[in-house]
């Protein structure tokens, strides 16, 4: 193999961000100091060269369309050189400073601590601090979430200009809710679900199809008045969407129960794609790729947000403003998200929630203790899917247009990234990750200063980089903080003392 060449020359300590090959060999302390600089320099040089060659084909050359339609080559060797130099310098600095100490401390930490006390001493002080703060964090978070529209309106000055910020709040909360829903499946039950967006799609299409259905409208118009279905369709369809999504969760969950972690992930991914492809191709039902438009807007429990008679503004004696609807949407999604969180918190304290956590830790032990794993997995799938369905119905009523475009695998990956980054199982972590990722992604749009001529030039589009950053963040979190940014895997139930059975000492169970 020609490509085996570079592998042979690398010394095992090359990329010693890895745990297994950290630092210079132990046992030769006397000779360590002198070659250390040399070793660090060699390592930095090797990584720089590696970076150069890895980036050379796709960054060094750029295939651009010429006027005639055939491709032309551009050259960007300077850019590759810059990347290589940055990596070299970065590794040199890190090798000489941070990784040296970390390598030493890691060797100590790798010996499993004998007792819980030692384990806690080795672990960072953050969890304890976090525990002290967490009683304050949750009410504060909820309070800010409730007051957010008021804050936004006050700070921006007026209802109209705050539209962008309210919209952003709705957008983020949708992902908070989706993250919490997926958290039940991935974080609590330990079942890696890559097709979560399927349930989101089921919810959205359920509402979209029912609310625009002419026969239902005609039938109800005859019995309950002409405007009944237009006014009430969301409130009638919301529970239906959740139920239908939960039903699909059971249908999709049932056959895959026997599968282990990564097989399960692939099968759920396949299910998600199948549902999307069916939505695209079943044109007579779903209108195919064109999607379903003119979905009726949300109403204040039957009261439309219109300027006319019987509208929300008139009934409450307000001057009409289209922002009323937005603010109401914000509170609806806040309520739905709060419901998700509340249900999850309560379920965690119930036998089924404890069974989920047990399942996550060790399926075989779980089964031998008499827990019905089939039922446990199915409830996790169904409840997670139900919240996905709620979120889907909300998405449809907010955008008032659904198409298969909105339910791609990338959407699943974004939700999964939120759960992973937040620390699987942690509610606050997931919320923080959603705010960070979705808000941060939105902020990328505003980084117009990067477009200035001396930085990246006017062609630079920061939004292109958002999925790139997502992917990188997923890898980085897995490598450096596999428990997520806010880790919470302490057992909910314990005898006498909180033993760190599920902490950093034990591998995760078989999903």
């Amino acid at each position, binding site marked *: 193999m020609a490509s085996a060449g570079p592998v042979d020359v690398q010394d095992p300590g090359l990329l010693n961000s890895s745990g297994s090959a950290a630092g210079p060999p132990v046992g030769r302390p006397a000779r360590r100091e002198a070659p250390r600089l040399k070793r660090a320099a060699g390592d930095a040089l090797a990584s720089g060269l590696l970076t150069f060659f890895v980036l050379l084909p*796709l960054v060094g050359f750029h295939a651009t369309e010429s006027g005639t339609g055939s491709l032309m080559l551009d050259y960007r060797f300077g850019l590759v050189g810059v990347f290589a130099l940055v990596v070299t310098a970065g590794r040199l600095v890190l090798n000489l400073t941070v990784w040296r100490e970390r390598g030493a401390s890691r060797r100590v930490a790798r010996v499993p601590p004998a007792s819980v006390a030692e384990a806690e001493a080795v672990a960072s002080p953050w969890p304890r601090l976090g525990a002290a703060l967490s009683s304050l964090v949750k009410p504060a978070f909820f309070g800010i979430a409730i007051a957010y529209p008021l804050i936004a309106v006050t700070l921006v000055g007026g209802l109209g200009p705050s539209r962008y910020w309210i919209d952003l709040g709705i957008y983020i909360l949708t992902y908070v809710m989706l993250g919490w829903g997926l958290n039940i499946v991935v974080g609590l039950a330990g079942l890696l679900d890559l097709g979560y967006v399927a349930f989101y799609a089921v919810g959205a299409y359920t509402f979209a199809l029912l609310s625009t259905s002419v026969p239902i409208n005609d039938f109800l118009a005859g019995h309950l008045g002409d405007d009944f279905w237009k006014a009430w369709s969301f409130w009638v369809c919301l529970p239906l969407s959740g139920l239908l999504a939960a039903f699909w969760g059971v249908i999709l969950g049932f056959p895959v129960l026997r599968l282990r972690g990564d097989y399960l992930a692939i099968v759920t991914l396949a299910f998600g794609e199948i549902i999307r492809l069916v939505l695209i191709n079943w044109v007579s039902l779903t209108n195919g790729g064109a999607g379903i438009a003119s979905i009726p807007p949300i109403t204040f429990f039957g009261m439309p947000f219109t300027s006319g008679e019987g509208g929300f503004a008139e009934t409450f004696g307000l001057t009409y403003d289209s922002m009323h609807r937005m603010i109401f949407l914000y509170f609806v999604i806040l309520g739905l998200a709060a419901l998700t969180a509340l249900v999850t918190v309560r379920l965690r304290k119930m036998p089924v929630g404890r069974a989920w956590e047990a399942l996550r830790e060790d399926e075989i032990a779980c089964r031998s203790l008499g827990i019905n794993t089939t039922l446990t997995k199915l409830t996790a799938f169904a409840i997670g899917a139900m919240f996905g369905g709620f979120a889907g119905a909300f998405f449809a009523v907010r955008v008032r247009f659904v198409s298969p475009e909105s339910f791609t695998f990338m959407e699943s990956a974004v939700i999964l990234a939120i759960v992973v980054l937040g620390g699987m199982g942690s509610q606050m972590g997931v919320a923080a990750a959603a705010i960070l990722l979705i808000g941060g992604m939105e902020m990328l749009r505003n980084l117009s200063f990067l477009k200035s001529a001396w930085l990246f030039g006017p062609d630079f589009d920061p939004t292109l980089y958002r999925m790139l950053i997502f992917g990188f963040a997923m890898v980085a979190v897995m490598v450096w903080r596999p428990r997520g940014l806010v880790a919470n895997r302490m057992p909910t139930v314990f005898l006498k003392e909180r033993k760190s059975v599920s902490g950093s000492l034990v591998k995760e169970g078989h999903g």
Partner: protein
Amino acid sequence: MEIFVQQLINGLTLGSIYGLIAIGYTMVFGIIGMVNFAHGDVFMVSAFTGLICILLLTTVLGMSSIFLILAITLVVAMIFTGLVSWTIERVAYRPLRGSFRLAPMISAIGMSIFLSNFVQVAQGPRNKPIPPMVTDVIVLMERDGYQVTLAYKQVIIMAVTAGLLVVFWWLVQKTSLGRAQRACEQDRKMAALLGVNVDRTISLTFVIGAALAAVAGVMYLMYYGVVNFADGFVPGVKAFTAAVLGGIGSLPGAVLGGLLIGLIETFWSAYFSIEYKDVAAFSILVVVLIFMPQGLLGRPEVEKV
């Protein structure tokens, strides 16, 4: 009959490409028990590397011999894709060995997203076409104006695949590297105790898998004449389906599965509906995993405590 033969040829060509990608999945799964989710995107990266190389050879160096261009492109794509895959394993997977079970999978998903978006940022979101390379065809049969043709590029794809499989088979069965690989597959800890450099063997497994994916990538580029940054996902899932169908961990199974998936896909498109061909492939994946998780040629897996 004519349609059948034509679809058979097309299916085998497509199946060869899937089979080459599937080997990468099956080897990595065999040795470290992880689904290398980024493998499909490595395949896409290799197709782009091939595209750049072909452009460099034709427009800049002015080379005109098609076979020379193809040969050089294959070698270059194999080398660079191997390098990329080696780096990925080193950066994203090796630190996670011994971490909890889903960690490498999540890292691989992140890597897959990173790779496809990296190519999108670096090379742009549009389809990248190359001028048709090998256009000659052999007419095998002709009846009522319907010609059954065997294109030279299909011959090239099948021949290169077959040749590579022979080389690869020799590599796994007869060399010390292959022995080390099979030893790691059976029992990694024991292999390490007996002096096998496990980390290096795993790295080389990734490199070999990527090199075969690179061949598939260049063949894909030559066959379809166009490549896009999102082209890694669907072929990746289909190749994984092929690996599962053939029995994951089994090398002949991967090739067999690849050919079957290629045939099923082309026949499905020809006789049923072309819109649902991906649904067919994904459904096979689901059905096989549920009812026959050990695949056609795989060994049933026994879970030990």
